[in-house]
């Protein structure tokens, strides 16, 4: 029967599971995100560098010319921790840009349109809501971070052979865990900014400002005060130090790995508190 001829009937059938419901939000969000041209363009642009890296891995394993280069130059072009660290640093910039573009559209419109009571009057808690929003960003950022990273690692492992893999397996684990931690930090920053300001464009600017302005402030502090802990203000630098340790590369000068990890954990807790405070079904003015 045509839909317009049917009357309303209450649904009496089985309901979906809890986690299926939670994953509804990312599914709808991804559909809307990939309808935005800017997100698509940025996504494509962010895959250029992994393609170039893939090409380099292929050439370095296949071209006799590269194999026959003198030792020093050959070492410079080797596929090792340093190679993957450069890859991760470049992709981290794209992930910040993508988060700044996609993140604010996840929470700010819900707050601006007072949509939270609609979500929270359904079988969905605030934790579910935040988990769903983080899952949206994790899915999106994974496409430009650890997924191509792990693919490159397996490509190198496949071409270089079992010996290379047994010696360098930690690179794959480092890429996965390092990008996992980075995605979590970036997602929390994007969501907290989105929850803090209801205007989407301003929230996007705030995300970029958080990473790029803080980096500048950290550098200025290091230069003016002749210290190295200014780098702690720069989440990108802190993460770079952690990645270096994970990939077995000599870390850049600055605070130790554990200090950086502690600062990033503290930052994550702080951002979690912002979300806890801002995401409520109703605002209570005491």
């Amino acid at each position, binding site marked *: 029967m045509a839909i317009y001829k049917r009357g309303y009937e209450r*649904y009496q059938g089985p309901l979906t599971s809890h986690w299926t419901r939670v994953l*509804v939000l990312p599914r709808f969000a991804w559909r809307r995100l990939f309808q935005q041209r800017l997100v698509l363009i940025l996504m494509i642009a962010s895959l250029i560098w992994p393609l170039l890296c893939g090409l380099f891995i292929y050439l370095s394993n296949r071209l006799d010319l590269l194999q026959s280069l003198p030792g020093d130059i050959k070492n410079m072009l080797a596929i090792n921790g340093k190679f993957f660290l450069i890859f991760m640093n470049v992709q981290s910039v794209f992930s910040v840009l993508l988060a700044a573009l996609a993140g604010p559209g996840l929470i700010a419109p819900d707050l601006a349109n007072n949509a939270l009571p609609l979500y*929270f009057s359904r079988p969905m808690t605030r934790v579910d809501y935040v988990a769903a929003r983080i899952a949206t960003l994790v899915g999106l950022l994974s496409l430009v971070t650890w997924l191509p990273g792990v693919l490159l690692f397996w490509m190198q492992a496949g071409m270089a052979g079992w010996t290379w893999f047994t010696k360098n397996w930690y690179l794959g684990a480092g890429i996965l865990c390092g990008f996992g931690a980075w995605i979590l930090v970036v997602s929390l920053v994007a969501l907290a900014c989105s929850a803090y300001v209801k205007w989407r464009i301003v929230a996007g600017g705030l995300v970029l400002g958080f990473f790029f302005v803080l980096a500048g402030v950290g550098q200025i502090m290091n230069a003016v005060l002749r210290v190295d802990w200014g780098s702690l203000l720069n989440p990108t630098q802190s993460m770079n130090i952690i990645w270096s340790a994970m990939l077995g590369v000599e870390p850049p000068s600055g605070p130790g790995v554990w200090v950086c990890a502690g600062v990033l954990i503290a930052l994550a807790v702080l951002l979690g508190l912002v979300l806890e405070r801002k995401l409520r079904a109703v605002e209570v003015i005491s």
Partner: protein
Amino acid sequence: MTAAIEIDNLRLKLGRREILKGISCRLGVSGAGKAIGLLGPNGAGKSTLIQTLLGFHRPHAGSARIFGFDCHRQAREVRSHVGYMPESDSFIANLTAVSFLCLMGELSGLPAETALEKAHEVLFHVGLGEARYRTLGTYSLGMKQMAKLAQAIVHGPDLVILDEPTNGLDPSARLRMLKLVKEMKDEHGMSVVLCSHLLRDVEEVCDEVVILKDGLIVHQSNLEEERRSNRRFVELEVSGDDSALAAHLSALGAEMVSEGGGRWRIVLPLEFEIARLWQVTAQLNLGVRKLTHRRDSLEEIFLKAVGHLQATPQERLHADAVAAEEVSPHGHL
């Protein structure tokens, strides 16, 4: 019979202010399709009570249960049985109505295909069929109200909580909204909680009414019973010699008071057939000029409950009749 809503000594503080001060009541019957009107002056705690029922606030004492589930500890179970239409604008501006309802349906646990089907079905049901592919941001106020109602019922809940559903609606849209609410309870067996400032809307739709004032229930009644009891209060105006009327009616168990000039105010006993009154007047050869049921409007009940009225007209009539009966056994003043 399980009550749809059971509230036991519910107390709620927001900040240092106590909003709900020990509310206790049992409302509706599970699966019986009853509508409960929630009334009260501004700041009485109506919206806070609704939000507490939905688990948005943690009560500091007492409990509230919906269909037997605790609203705070079993919020997820409660919410899977409830549909909520908030008072203020709540939507996702850049979604089409169909996508919005699909999303809301799926979040409530409908499988994706069913949610899409139900979204279309409900939008036609509330009269937004032709506008279902428009984004919600382009809707008029009346259309947004209907979209809010649609999202509240898309998953077929057992209880629908409507906070000021007729706000900002023109008369025809208001009638349509009330018709839909009546259908929800009468045809689909849903329990409905209707929170409104418009007493006429509540009177038209609801079976029970609760009046809140300063965080307390000051009146709770069954409107159906009120309507039935209203039928006992009659104003009669006759022409002719009515001196024997009091004696005849007293014999039938009625209480009455004469206002002179053939005007009588009568309290009929329960199960009294109005036809008997016609028989008595015919027997006494009296011409009936006027016979009306005197009823308390919800407005009068409300005004009395919030302290703006000493007694409802019905209560005054009853008190007058009792006083007259004490002075003169046949009710003549």
